[in-house]
């Protein structure tokens, strides 16, 4: 209680400095958490798309049922296949017709027999990224009876690269902000220390331990960190509610079936933890320097 009272007194004594410090923390953590929200949603989108992607291998015309079954077995023997579905020429025609259901006129006079039979192959997740997918397609193309392969991996790779870059960017920006914030907090605490310089000197003379002297400042740093983090999350939620959700149609168009979501609880906890550790780091930076002097 004593420590809390002292910390409270110091915060009141340096109310403006504390306010500015908290403001800067709010702003910096807000930038960081905006990155987080974008990443969380891009990741979600990627996982969704990955599930949709399949390798379509078109078959040579005129294969016998036996040959098709044999081919299916050999594809299943390849590494990375999650599921396989045979689409016969008749199925393909049916699908095509269903697709153009409203505009049957287009199909009139067309010989739908030209549509080839195919296998729709779903790959295991780990085969979408990295080399696995390419190797699979290479092996698949070597199989007899397959004429053409359609594989939508390229743009998944591109998306994954973007997400990857963003993730790196987030850590780089995060790291710079982390250093900057701990520097700011350390300076605020330093001002607090100087405003109590005399008192600390006397504390040391009458036998106060370093811990006893430090705790109120740690509480001050903790207060700055946690209130900065909470306010920044609150602001982010406000932005999310008022801006992102209201611009729904646009977001919906770009995200497809995915709903744009706020940070998961784990990330919220993470941001608060980052705030708290910033507070501690900032205060211990200036305290260690001061007490060793």
């Amino acid at each position, binding site marked *: 209680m004593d420590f809390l009272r002292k910390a409270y007194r110091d915060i009141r004594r340096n109310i403006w400095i504390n306010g500015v410090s908290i403001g800067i923390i709010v702003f910096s953590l807000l930038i960081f958490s905006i990155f987080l929200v974008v990443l969380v949603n891009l990741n979600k989108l990627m996982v969704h798309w990955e599930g949709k992607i399949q390798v379509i291998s078109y078959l040579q015309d005129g294969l016998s049922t036996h040959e098709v079954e044999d081919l299916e077995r050999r594809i299943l023997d390849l590494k990375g296949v999650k599921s396989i579905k045979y689409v016969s020429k008749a199925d393909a025609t049916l699908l095509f017709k269903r697709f153009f259901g409203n505009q049957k006129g287009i199909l009139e006079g067309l010989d739908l027999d030209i549509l080839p039979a195919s296998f729709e192959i779903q790959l295991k997740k780990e085969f979408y990224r990295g080399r696995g997918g390419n190797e699979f397609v290479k092996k698949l193309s070597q199989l007899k009876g397959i004429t053409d392969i359609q594989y939508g991996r390229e743009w998944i790779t591109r998306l994954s690269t973007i997400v990857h870059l963003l993730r790196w960017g987030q850590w780089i920006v995060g790291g710079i902000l982390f250093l900057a914030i701990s520097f700011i907090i350390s300076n605020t605490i330093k001002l607090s220390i100087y405003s109590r310089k*005399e008192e600390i000197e006397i*504390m*040391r003379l*009458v*036998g*106060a*331990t370093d811990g006893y002297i430090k705790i109120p400042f740690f509480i001050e740093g903790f207060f700055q960190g946690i209130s900065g983090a909470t306010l920044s999350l609150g602001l982010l939620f406000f932005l999310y509610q008022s801006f992102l959700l209201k611009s729904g149609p646009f977001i919906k168009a770009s995200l497809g079936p995915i709903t744009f979501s706020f940070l998961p609880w784990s990330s919220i906890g993470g941001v608060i933890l980052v705030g708290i550790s910033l507070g501690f780091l900032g205060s211990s930076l200036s305290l260690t320097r001061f007490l060793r002097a």
Partner: protein
Amino acid sequence: MIQFYHVSKIYSGNIHALDDITLQVNRGEFVFLTGPSGAGKTTLLKLIHCEESPTQGEILVNGINISRIKHSQIPYLRRNIGIVFQDFKLLKDLTVFQNVAFALEVTGIRGKELKRRTWKTLRMVGLLEKMDEMPLKLSGGEQQRVAIARALVNNPPILLADEPTGNLDPEITLDIINLMNNLNAGGTTIIVATHNTDLVRKYSKMVVKLVKGRTVDQLHPERPALRTEVKASFL
């Protein structure tokens, strides 16, 4: 109680503050540490109080070798050594009571025990009726009494005073030294650094004279012949 064995203190820039000091202060002794400004009086007190560590030599306080003490142990040692300064070092925004109680608070004493001990110490220095005053409303002598009360509230066996009467007029100076004398009669070991030679002459106490960081003489009250000699040659 306090022993120095060939202690030297050299500050950066090769400033020799103390040079090969060997000294013994027994339990219950009252010592005047004299010498001109820059002789090393303050440095010697700082060494006892662990604000500085010796460059060479060993210092024992209460049988503990403080030249090798761990940083974390220093606060506990300081609770056994009260210290007062010329400029009192009182906190201006705390009352007399709070200034004295402050030294108990940092050791974790609270509540009734804190009040009881603070009152008792304030009564001892004759300031109980002024306990709710702010320090700046008190006279210099009274402020120094508050500082002494703060130094004593933890019942330390040793009291160090660095020019405690430097800012006080002669009458009040005697008042303060008499107070210390009474404390000494109660068993507290006291070391007073002062360049006030009149003061040293008035009391028959052990005198350690420092000049340029060296002890030029140590004189005991039980050897009055030497004291006369000191008066003639140093004071």
